[in-house]
């Protein structure tokens, strides 16, 4: 029985992709194989409608746990593959019945291969008759104890009862790459996860202001990214030395404008880095109204310094919803570790919630921020965070 056991992977929104569908499927197959590379005896059938993974004796639950985190998969079923032959289908259906616990059953059939001589209804009727003859079971089409699905496809027939939800979205990498502004708080890792789920590969940028910010923040980021390695196995973390810029802002600009100007500097740096690294957009965890720099007026004043597309996946999310995603993807406990980042240090007592563009430009003209930015970009540090179980020491 076990050598015909497969996991059937169904695609999410790929069915809307028309001509590109094949590329998406090949990319998804590549991502799946990469995530499952430790299971060397798995075999893959990559077909136009589904991907089939032959288990060859591996425990399906372990494989399933990995598949559930791969974006682009809608559903996964544990299937028995057999010849398109009524006797074989019948045998598998009989073997799925648990005589002690199942009192009722239901059969469902899909016949994708229209050349198969029996219609779906006829298949159901023949097999149901056999089950009724063999076991003391009744048919219940509303609340069956055992719900069996039969799919007759061109290449073979598949029988299954269990189907599991996948992550949805698109295969990672299918949407290109974006640069995410990662602070270490609760929001940015969630924004990152939502983008990856949508098929976008992520590079991360972090602004560090030592000694005002602690090195502990960087370790916190490593830990966060290790968690997110589940969805993207190699993540680049770009650390920008931001202390000199922050010092200059506080020396030359009024306190109430400090956050606005700091964010503008971060955007400018992010734009240059994203161009260098061929990222198609900048992503951050901003959510409208959450803090002074995230009012619509502030966001406009900040955003206007760059031309790159900025995506804010959390723009309209409530904090409680963001937290529940963070808990689900297991970044929350790391995010709440108490370290100060660039945004929480030097927090002014009364920041501007509606900073005027002209005022901000005036204050910025008081110091040579361009060379400070060039200097910061020259001194970035890039770390590759992977889930490879390398020796740490």
């Amino acid at each position: 029985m076990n050598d015909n056991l497969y996991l059937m992977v169904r695609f999410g929104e790929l069915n809307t992709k028309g001509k590109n569908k094949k590329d998406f499927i090949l990319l998804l197959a590549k991502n799946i194989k990469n995530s499952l590379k430790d299971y060397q005896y798995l075999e893959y059938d990559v077909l136009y409608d589904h991907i089939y993974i032959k288990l060859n004796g591996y425990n399906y639950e372990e494989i399933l746990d990995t598949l559930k985190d791969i974006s682009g998969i809608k559903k996964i079923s544990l299937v028995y593959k057999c010849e398109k032959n009524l006797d074989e289908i019948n045998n598998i259906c009989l073997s799925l019945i648990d005589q002690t616990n199942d009192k009722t059953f239901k059969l469902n059939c899909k016949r994708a291969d229209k050349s198969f001589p029996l219609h779906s209804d006829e298949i159901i009727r023949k097999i149901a008759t056999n089950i009724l003859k063999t076991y003391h079971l009744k048919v219940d089409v509303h609340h069956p104890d055992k719900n069996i699905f039969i799919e007759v496809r061109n290449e073979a027939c598949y029988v299954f009862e269990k189907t599991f939800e996948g992550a949805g979205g698109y295969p990672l990498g299918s949407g290109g790459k974006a640069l995410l502004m990662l602070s270490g708080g609760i929001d940015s890792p969630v924004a990152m996860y939502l983008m990856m789920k949508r098929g976008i590969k992520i590079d991360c940028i972090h602004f560090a202001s030592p000694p005002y910010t602690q090195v502990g923040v960087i370790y916190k980021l490593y830990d966060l990214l290790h968690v997110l390695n589940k969805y993207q196995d190699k993540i680049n973390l770009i650390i920008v030395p931001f202390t000199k810029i922050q010092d200059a802002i506080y020396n030359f600009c009024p306190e109430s404008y400090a956050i606005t100007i700091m964010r503008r500097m971060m955007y400018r740096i992010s734009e240059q880095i994203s161009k260098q690294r061929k990222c198609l957009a900048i992503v951050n965890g901003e959510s409208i109204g959450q803090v002074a720099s995230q009012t619509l007026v502030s966001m406009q004043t900040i955003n206007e310094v760059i031309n790159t597309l900025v995506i804010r996946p959390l723009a309209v999310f409530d904090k409680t919803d963001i937290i529940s995603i963070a808990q689900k993807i297991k970044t929350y406990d790391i995010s709440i570790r108490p370290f100060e980042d660039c945004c929480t240090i030097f927090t002014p007592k009364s920041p501007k919630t509606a900073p005027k563009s002209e005022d901000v430009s005036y204050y910025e003209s008081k110091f040579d921020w361009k060379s400070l930015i060039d200097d910061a970009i020259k001194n970035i540090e890039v770390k590759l965070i992977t889930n490879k179980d390398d020796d740490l020491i």
Partner: protein
Amino acid sequence: MIYFDNAASTKPDLDILEKYRQINEELYANPSSLNNFSKHCEHLFNQTKHQILSSLNLKNDYDVIFTSGASESNSLALIGYVIKNIKKGDNIIVSEVEHASILNASKYLSEKYNIKVSYLKIKSDGQYDVEHFKTLINKKTILVSLMLVNNEIGTIYDMSKIKEILKEYPDVIFHSDAVQAIGKINYDYNLFDMFTLSGHKIHSMKGQGALILKKNLQLSPLIFGGNQQENIRSGTLDLANAYCLNLAIKKAIKEIDIHQKNVQLIHDKIFKYLKNNGDLYELNSKIDDLCYILNFSFKHKKASVMCEALSLKGIQTTTVSACSSHVDSSSYVVKALGKNESIYKNTLRISFSKYNTLKEADEFIDAVETLNMEIKDER
């Protein structure tokens, strides 16, 4: 020297010893201190935990508490859990063949905290008596601790039926002393709420143990101090010991199949010899037990004399487990199998590792054959 006492302790791997030296030389900061050197060490310490959980193929909801060894881990699991959760019930179940640390911690709980300790019997085939288990478990049971592989005779216990029964008691915590199983059998440790492992049984050093436990479990500490390790086990975090334990686990699990093949050959050779000479020896281990441990009794010789004589010939074995040897020379595990006194008082345990060879098996057989002629029958 032929070292056939690997269930007592193993030879540390050189790369692990070297790593221990290197970490103490380079990464000696206190990981809980506040400078950046300490933070670096703390990060590595946390990563080490993750690597252990990943090597053991555990899902995210487990945590690692590093201890001084398996005895501390077992004591912490039993005493720490029971004291903290005594309001939930006052019965615990352990098997009669557990390691001394479980039996003595249970005894302590019974004497000091009035906990009712039930002892699960084993059947003559060595397996846990599931029917007996059903009569022991009840609504007041809060903890069950059953070892996964027996340290004296090598039985690999079948936990499936026990686990099935425990499904009806979802509040009962299931702990296992998995010391002799880690790196020797492929096993799904997600079955347990807590389990114990030890470094020096898998070619790392003494002083390294861990209790792996589900994150939501509440335990009282046995050691008090600076509240390290979630306040369950205080004491300066020891990166070198933690990391070496991690390395040893990683290597042991990765290499299970490779070493098992070799050890199985050694085991089978000696097993076959003992079986073919049933007039001289009584086998206490079965052929399908863990191949790393082989226990038998001399029918006509005193085991302590044979052990001494073998040792003089350079072959290191033991009569009963090292942790029971100070108490009594008879094996309570073999006794529990239902064997008679002359058998359970004269057991010899030989235990293997990846460093043993087939040639050593031949030498061992030659040595016992010679000794059989040289040493007088005593009984």
